[in-house]
């Protein structure tokens, strides 16, 4: 059965329990104690050793349907993660077959196969997967493949105190997400929408198994507005390569013929 995450950013409180639970369960090293000045975000980005990343967006815009003492201000908090795309750029780029689709429809990197070629890193339109320079291999969220095999939910979803991260069967999640958007719209938060819920809303990836409920443009969350798996666009490059190679062959033959005829 296809499993995934529905991350509802409107109930995220920015506690970073997901980040901590992920690091602990997957035994990921810390990334150093740094102070970025980017609001409360000292995690910075998803990386080979960070598979959940909570973003802190301070907006000089109020959320519609909400009244606060802050006036024209609102927090947007979002726990970012690998999207486990239906058409996954990393998987289609992987030359070794290290990256596979599992029985849970998630995208998983087999660490015993990966040879660290780095092609998946540039294949991901979301900038998720990265190479760990210490062990030379590519890493990203596994959707807690080991926990799933034992019938448990991923560590981040388990730790999330507000159910901003919901784990479950994809069909149920989609239903729940559509219901949530409807509820928010009824309450006046008309900007709420789903990012990557299905192929219709995101044809470039044919939908994400880890999708999001957002209340502003994707760019505000540092998400690409229109991500496309690279292989969808590359057909013409293959054809033009074939034509250029034929031209090279013709040019080579013509050159030697020109030399001989003297």
């Amino acid at each position, binding site marked *: 059965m296809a499993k995934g995450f529905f991350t509802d950013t409107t109930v995220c409180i920015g506690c970073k329990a997901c980040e901590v639970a992920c690091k602990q369960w997957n035994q990921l090293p810390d990334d150093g104690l740094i102070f*970025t000045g*980017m609001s409360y975000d000292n995690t910075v980005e998803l990386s080979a050793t960070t598979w959940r990343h909570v973003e802190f*967006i301070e907006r*000089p815009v109020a959320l519609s349907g909400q009244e606060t003492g802050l006036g024209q201000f609102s927090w947007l908090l979002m726990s970012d993660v690998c999207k486990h795309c239906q058409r996954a750029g990393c998987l*289609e*780029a*992987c*030359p*070794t077959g290290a990256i596979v689709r599992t029985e849970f429809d998630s995208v998983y990197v087999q660490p015993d*196969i*990966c*040879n*660290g*070629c*780095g*092609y998946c*890193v*540039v*294949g*991901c*339109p*979301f*900038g*998720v997967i*990265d190479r760990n*320079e210490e*062990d030379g291999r*590519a890493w990203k969220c596994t959707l807690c493949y080991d926990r799933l095999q034992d019938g448990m939910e991923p560590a981040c979803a388990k730790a999330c105190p507000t159910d901003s991260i919901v784990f479950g069967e994809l069909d149920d999640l989609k239903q729940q997400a559509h219901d949530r958007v409807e509820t928010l719209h009824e309450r006046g938060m008309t900007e709420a929408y789903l990012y990557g819920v299905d192929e219709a809303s995101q044809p*470039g990836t044919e939908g994400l198994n880890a999708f999001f409920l957002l209340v502003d443009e994707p*760019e*505000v*969350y*540092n*998400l*690409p507005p229109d*991500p496309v798996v*690279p292989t969808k666009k*590359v057909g*013409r*490059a*293959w*054809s*033009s*390569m074939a*034509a*250029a*190679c034929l*031209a*090279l*062959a013709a*040019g*080579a*033959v*013509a*050159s*030697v013929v*020109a*030399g*001989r005829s*003297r």
Partner: protein
Amino acid sequence: MSSGSEPGYYNRPVLKEPVWIWAVPAYFVVGGAAGAAAALGAAAEIADRESFGGLIKTCRRIAATGLVVGSALLIYDLGRPGRFFNMLRVFRPTSPLNVGSWLLAAATPCAALSAVSEGSIGQLAGLSAGALGLPITGYTAVLLANTAVPVWQEMGAALPASFVASAAVSAASLLEMTELSEEEAIAVRVFAVTSKCCESIAATVVERRARAVPEVGRALDSPRAKGLLSLARISVGVAAVMSLVSGKSRAGRRAAGLLGTIGAAAHKFGVFYAGEASARDPQATFAQRS
């Protein structure tokens, strides 16, 4: 949307930068040169084996050296070099890197065999290396176009033509720097002038394609890319004229070869570093056309 002039999240990149080091663009150069040399050698083999004996031998040597060195560069770049053979674990046509690995695995032994043997074995190996060398000159461009990096994606269908032409320039320029008989010199000159002119045009088209979206095209103006691409444009242009007018001057031919070698390499390194700059620029990702 935040009040700042440009959208985004603290101006953080959306994409990850390529993790590849200099060895990868260096492979694009030597692998391309080897592929084109193998193709030219095979063409000479078919046309007239007797009069082009020396040229064929030189082509075979360039092909063998380039493919062996190129494979070594690629293995050196891996995070786990000891696992390079995992590249041949599967056949995955969606991955130009996988397709290229198979091509390289087939072409390298053929080229090496052709360089060390003569007679019909050498001939068969040389012809096989030539046929396999053709796609090796161009698949690296498809490999770059098949990424999420905005400037490489935008170059798209124009990039393979420039990489194939650049590979031909590399091979022709190396040959211009070797000893050639009169007939061979003419053949090499025709090949050199043609490929240098094609490369000049293809590089211009690539740049124009990349600049169709201003936020994407500005990666070409990043310091390293700009310098290298300008160097490439000037070197290849001047080298084309020099190849044309050098006549029987051996020094002129060598200078044309040296400039062509530099120009062809600078083009591929320039395209590579433009990609790094483009991946760092979130506005390029946001503006990218789907």
